């Protein structure tokens, strides 16, 4: 794989872009985007694609909840409903959340935070983008060719026997997995090899540490998903017999294989979100993150421990009692590093100097909602309780609290935070706060109702339900409308910013972090002069007034 070791483009003085020019203006035309090697432009293209994916997945969610507003048929029949919730899951997991923070925000910010000119392998980076888009095409093709009705988890034997368009969807996920792996490889090498002078490991931003840990998971876990999906495809296409009891196979083996990737995958989802929180919290408390080393190491601990707990998805699958015990114990262990982060964040607020602008609202929401999500994970880790709660709406609410209340809040918060850096423009702060309010309220209304009906026995993936659950479903659906309204307002706000937003200063938030010390938007080569670092990104007591100036 020699993406990097190639001849540098022959440069004539006339057409070489000026490395000091604003990266948005340095080259023009659609080809300059489609064939770019600039990590910033690649990040933006990823951003556009994942936002489209989010809108699509969100639409599926609204349709699911709309169908559930009344008992029996509301809009669609059961087969269509089963496809709706499956597509919601597949699109949100594979097309949106896995790439979201690393590929869209990380691509843009990471090299700048390191003081580098680009990632280690720019052409590989572009290839990752195209691989993602190509995989997404397979997924879209599946959707129009009858879609999938297996749930995003593709459990066998249902997924190997159902009539829906499973293979193109699974192949799409397989292909997109390579995008994730290559991004991980790229980031790992970038962090190791492309740090600016003075950028020691203990001066790295915690966002960098988070992306580093995430990249480790991406590289180690995603190939296992790849082989699982390949085996599933062969089982379906060829009748391989690995998962079919009639041919000597075992359907539960699929679950083990699937979750061996998919559990670490949830740490791919949450750890970058936690990384973003560090950046925002520090800037808007004007303070270093308390317990820097502990927070950095906790990301690595999550990466490691995340590989040991997959069995907690299989507690009632018929697995041996011995195995369930081991996985339950390990599952509790993985709560510790998350707790360490939450405590350190709260300690950072204590005696900080806090400003509540919109990025901070999202970071604070993250801490609150992730705490709830994480604690509800404890319920599920307790074997006796999980027997009751498994495959109920309690689980659905739990993972939405961590993935939406956690990762999406982190993603959206990061988008607000770095929006001026990326676009050179400001957005309307009042509108941002307004949108946040509806997102926050809508989210909680949607999912608290689900916790309650779940523990009361409402199973998940149900097209229809008993009358006793109707009030909870109605409440949850109304919550989804509030949430959707919030996101819609946010979308309008960002579009307005692009059209007519105020120009941003270099450092609108007064941050001490490195990415805010270069021009906004950054020059093509990120820095006019490669920096030599003498302090960390959170060292407010060492930063000069000029560096922190918001003017």
């Amino acid at each position, binding site marked *: 794989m*020699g993406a990097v*070791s190639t001849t*540098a483009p022959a440069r004539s003085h006339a057409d070489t872009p000026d490395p000091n020019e604003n990266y948005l203006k340095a080259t023009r035309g659609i080809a300059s985007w489609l064939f770019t090697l600039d990590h910033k432009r690649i990040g933006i293209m990823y951003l556009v694609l994942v936002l489209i994916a989010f809108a699509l997945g969100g639409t599926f969610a609204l349709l699911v909840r709309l169908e559930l507003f009344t008992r029996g048929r509301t809009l669609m029949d059961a087969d269509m409903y089963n496809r709706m919730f499956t597509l919601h899951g597949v699109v949100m997991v594979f097309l949106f959340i896995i790439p979201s923070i690393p590929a869209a925000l990380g691509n843009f910010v990471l090299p700048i935070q390191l003081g580098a000119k680009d990632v280690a392998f720019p052409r590989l980076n572009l290839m990752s983008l195209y691989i993602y888009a190509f995989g997404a095409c397979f997924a879209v093709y599946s959707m129009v060719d009858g879609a999938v009705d297996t749930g995003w988890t593709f459990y066998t034997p249902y997924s190997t026997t159902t009539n829906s368009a499973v293979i193109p969807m699974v192949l799409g996920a397989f292909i997109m997995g390579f995008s994730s792996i290559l991004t991980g490889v790229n980031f790992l090498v970038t962090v190791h090899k492309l*740090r600016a002078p003075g950028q020691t490991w203990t001066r790295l931003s915690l966002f960098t540490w988070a992306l580093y840990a995430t990249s480790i998971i991406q*590289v180690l876990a995603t190939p296992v998903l*790849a082989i699982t999906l390949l*085996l599933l495809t062969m089982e379906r296409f060829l009748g391989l017999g690995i998962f079919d009891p009639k041919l000597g196979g075992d359907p539960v083996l699929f679950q083990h294989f699937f979750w061996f990737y998919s559990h670490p995958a949830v740490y791919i989802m949450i750890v970058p979100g936690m990384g973003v929180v560090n950046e925002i919290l520090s800037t808007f408390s004007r303070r270093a993150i308390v317990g820097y080393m502990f927070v950095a190491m906790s990301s690595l601990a999550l990466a490691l421990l995340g590989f040991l707990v997959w069995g907690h998805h299989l507690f009632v699958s018929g697995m041996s009692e011995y195995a369930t015990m081991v996985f339950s114990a390990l599952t509790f262990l993985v709560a510790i590093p998350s707790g360490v982060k939450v405590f350190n964040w709260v300690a950072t607020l204590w005696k900080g100097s806090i400003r509540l602008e919109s990025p901070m609202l999202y970071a604070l929401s993250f801490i609150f909602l992730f705490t709830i999500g994480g604690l509800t994970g404890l319920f599920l880790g307790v074997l006796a309780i999980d027997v009751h709660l498994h495959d109920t709406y309690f689980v659905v609410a739990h993972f939405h609290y961590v993935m939406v209340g956690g990762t999406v809040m982190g993603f959206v918060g990061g988008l607000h935070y770095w929006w001026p850096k990326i676009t050179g423009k400001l957005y309307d702060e009042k509108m941002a706060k307004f949108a946040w309010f509806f997102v926050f309220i809508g989210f909680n209304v949607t999912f608290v109702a689900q916790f309650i009906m779940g523990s009361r026995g409402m199973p998940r993936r149900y097209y229809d339900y008993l009358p006793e659950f109707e009030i909870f479903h109605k409440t949850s659906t109304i919550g989804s409308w509030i949430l959707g309204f919030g996101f819609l307002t946010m979308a309008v706000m960002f579009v307005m910013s692009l059209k007519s937003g105020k120009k941003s200063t270099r450092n609108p938030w007064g941050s001490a972090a490195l990415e805010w010390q270069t021009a906004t938007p950054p020059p093509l080569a990120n820095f*006019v002069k490669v920096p030599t670092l003498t302090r960390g990104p959170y060292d407010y007591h060492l930063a000069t007034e000029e560096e922190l100036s918001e003017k």
Partner: protein
Amino acid sequence: MSAEASSVVDPHAAGHDDHGHDEHEHEHPKFLAHHFDTPVQQFESAKLGMWTFLVQELLFFSGLFVAYGVFRSWYPEAFSGASHELNKVMGAGNTIVLLFSSWTAAMAVRATQLGQKKMTSMFLLVTIACAFIFLGVKYFEYGAKFNEGLLPGKYFGHAYDVSSIFPASLGFHTNLEPSEHLPAHASSYFSLYFMMTGVHALHIIVGIGVLIWIWRRNERGEFSKEFFTPVDIAALYWHLVDLVWIYLFPLLYLID
């Protein structure tokens, strides 16, 4: 993984970008990408990147090895019996071919490092030839399996007309007897056999593509004593493909 090095500092970095293009050309050889400061940094990055990629390749195969372990523990007699149906001579032959090709790949890297363009091409071509020999042997092995009904899953024990791919003129003829006397669940063995050797063969094919590309670049004079990175990391990939086979061979062919 290469040792963690502090970032390479280009002594001209601080004032570097203020200059015009002329002054930095001499420090920026043609093969050095614009975002790297020195060739060493670029080389180390490429190596680290390739090693990381290889780690994920190992994990990709590990899924199959785990499935193998699980099924073999469930059906030991079936695995043992089925393994005897494989041609040990062909398997061992392929093992030697791949080992030899790993050596020639390493020699190709060495030749580039010594600036020997012709030797590099020669070693690359021999490596590619070995890959084709490997695939050729596999063709004959697969053909035998198809004709003997030694197939995965639900196809096991059935005769299929494959004479268009495996013609009688090349020595293939149908004989279902081997599949008839094997213990139950031998089909699981063959499911894994075809998956594992099939995925491996796909990697060989990709490797052939990569090696041909490297050979062409060498012919165009892109490599030198100072710049041999692509040959190095292509050879690394090839070594992994060989390594996987070293494990596949005893596990599939030599169960007793």
